[in-house]
């Protein structure tokens, strides 16, 4: 690392070229804040500006595809296909979040006087996710994670006059602050053990020198506390049911796809790079078995607890805990096949979960409730919306011909042929998916086979835009389920992660 100032400035100047998408997002953030101050009518202009900004950032991200794998900014920031894949995912999730916010009555003019800041904070959150996916230094990981976290606390409590939303934000910030505190303490121990904060240097040090195993295990467990909270896996999941239920639904959708994907991106990079297998095949800290345990408990608890929920958002929260378990299965294989499956599944999960939450928003706009018992008779009253929800739930269960099936199939096949422990985990994964069928299908059961209590049958379809967006997500869910090769290939080509250099 250079020590004199001119050299550092030179390095930073060179690195700026690799930072264009992030600069563009920062500029978008500032633009939205400014527009929020000068405009009178913001409900259409600001989301449109955000969408255009996301498209422009997408173009800059696309240009990064041909860039060489390299570290920038004094080894803080990496640009590699792995990061670029996740950047596209975050942009997609962010754009969908903007679109579904526009249609939400919860965040409509009646409840929220000023919506401009909402979009600004959302953009800041996307920026934080970008940094999370490409952080190669523990300091940068911490900063990026906090940027995402603090933005998400604000978004969760955005309906500050509502009791549920305020309560959700309090619970979120308390759990979040504690887990990030644990994570920093763990990082400080790792720094003490190795004298390095860069994850590649840590890996080099760990494989070259003897480090105290107990301390390293303790530190890695503490770091896992921070990551586990972001991905919502057991035992760091306590916040998610309450936050998912209380937050405005578009925020819930974005949290469940965006922050989870960002958490996984960072988790994979940290554990695969910083604590690699030694030449003997042994890990300095046995994170594979540890993840196996977390994944197992997450799958069981998520799926079984969801059975008792009658609030759809809460049910989807437990289902997202279960999905964190499935995704961890792909991580703990620790080979390219598993990582590729995780990336594919995260993309699939984004489409189907945003879709499901979007339909929940559309239904709540009409009937004003998230309770599954109030969904009775909706099959007749909102035929297209009900059909879309059914498709998303089929996909979340993991049945063909949807993208969820392909994702689960890829994860479970990655586990095959790696030994009995992995095989058992795959079998448990399949069995718990069967359990999930039960609670997911409570919703279509209520919509199609039960009459609503007051016997109302008047149709109440949403706007043409809403129907078009729901149909678009439904087509994506089925389309990627039938023609999954391009997405799978993109994931496969993106697995290349900057390994030891």
């Amino acid at each position, binding site marked *: 690392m250079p020590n004199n100032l001119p050299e550092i400035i030179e390095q930073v100047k060179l690195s700026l070229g690799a930072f264009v998408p992030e600069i563009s997002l920062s500029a978008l953030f500032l633009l939205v804040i400014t527009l929020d101050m000068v405009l009178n009518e913001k409900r259409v202009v600001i989301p449109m500006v955000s969408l255009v900004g996301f498209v422009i950032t997408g173009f800059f991200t696309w240009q990064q595809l041909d860039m060489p794998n390299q570290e920038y900014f004094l080894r803080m920031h990496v640009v590699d296909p792995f990061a670029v894949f996740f950047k596209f995912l975050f942009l997609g999730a962010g754009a969908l979040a903007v679109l579904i916010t526009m249609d939400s009555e919860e965040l409509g003019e009646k409840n929220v006087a000023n919506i401009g800041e909402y979009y600004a904070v959302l953009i800041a959150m996307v920026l934080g996710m970008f940094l999370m996916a490409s952080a190669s230094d523990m*300091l940068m990981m911490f900063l990026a994670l906090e940027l995402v*976290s603090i933005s998400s606390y604000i978004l969760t409590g955005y309906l500050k006059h509502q009791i549920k939303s305020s309560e959700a*934000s*309090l619970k979120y*910030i308390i759990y979040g602050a504690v887990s990030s*505190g644990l994570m920093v303490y763990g990082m*400080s121990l790792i720094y003490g053990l190795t004298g390095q904060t860069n994850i590649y240097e840590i890996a080099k040090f760990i494989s070259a020198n003897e480090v105290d195993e107990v301390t390293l295990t303790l530190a890695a467990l503490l770091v896992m506390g921070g990551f586990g909270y972001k991905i919502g896996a057991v035992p760091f999941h306590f916040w998610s049911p309450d936050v998912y239920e209380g937050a405005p639904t578009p925020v819930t959708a974005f949290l469940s796809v965006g922050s989870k994907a960002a958490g996984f991106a960072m988790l994979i990079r940290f554990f695969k790079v910083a604590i690699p297998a030694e030449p003997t095949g042994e890990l300095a800290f046995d994170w594979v078995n540890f993840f196996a345990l977390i994944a197992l408990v997450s799958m069981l608890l998520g799926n079984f607890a969801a059975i008792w929920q009658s609030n759809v958002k809460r049910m989807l929260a437990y289902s997202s805990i279960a999905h964190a378990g499935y995704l961890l299965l792909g991580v703990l294989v620790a080979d390219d096949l598993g990582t590729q499956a995780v990336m594919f599944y995260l993309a699939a999960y984004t489409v189907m979960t945003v879709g499901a939450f979007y339909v929940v928003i559309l239904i709540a706009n009409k009937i004003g409730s998230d309770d599954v018992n109030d969904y009775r008779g909706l099959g007749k009253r909102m035929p297209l919306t009900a059909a879309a929800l059914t498709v998303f739930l089929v996909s979340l269960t993991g049945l063909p011909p949807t993208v969820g099936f392909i994702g689960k199939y890829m994860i479970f096949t990655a586990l095959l042929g790696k030994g009995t422990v992995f095989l058992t985990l795959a079998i448990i994964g399949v069995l718990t998916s069967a359990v999930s069928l039960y609670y997911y299908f409570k919703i279509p059961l209520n919509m199609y086979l039960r009459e609503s209590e007051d016997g109302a049958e008047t149709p109440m379809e949403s706007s043409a835009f809403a129907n078009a967006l729901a149909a678009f997500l439904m087509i994506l869910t089925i389309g990627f389920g039938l023609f999954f090769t391009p997405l799978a290939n993109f994931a496969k080509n993106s697995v290349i992660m900057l390994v030891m250099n």
Partner: protein
Amino acid sequence: MPEIGLNHFLVLSAILFSLGLFGIMTRRNAVVVLMGVELILNAANLNLVAFSKFNGTMSGVMFSMFGIILAAAEAAVALAIVLNIYARFKTVDIGEIDTMRE
């Protein structure tokens, strides 16, 4: 008088960490819980600075400076949320702020 070495710092930071964790787990006042979080963050900062002093690299000091700034940012948002909670619930006792569990 023995010289103050690395272990003294580490023990102090471990005590701070444990106190913070203990406070978070036992206290029911949201503000006191947030104070526990600050203790944990400061334990980490102390660790970082001590390690930095004893192994001669500067990255620990840099890390701890960012840590202090982030702790302040987090506390600002957290206190705003707690204020809002007080306006809604007329209490900051986390045991009583529990409307969603079924």
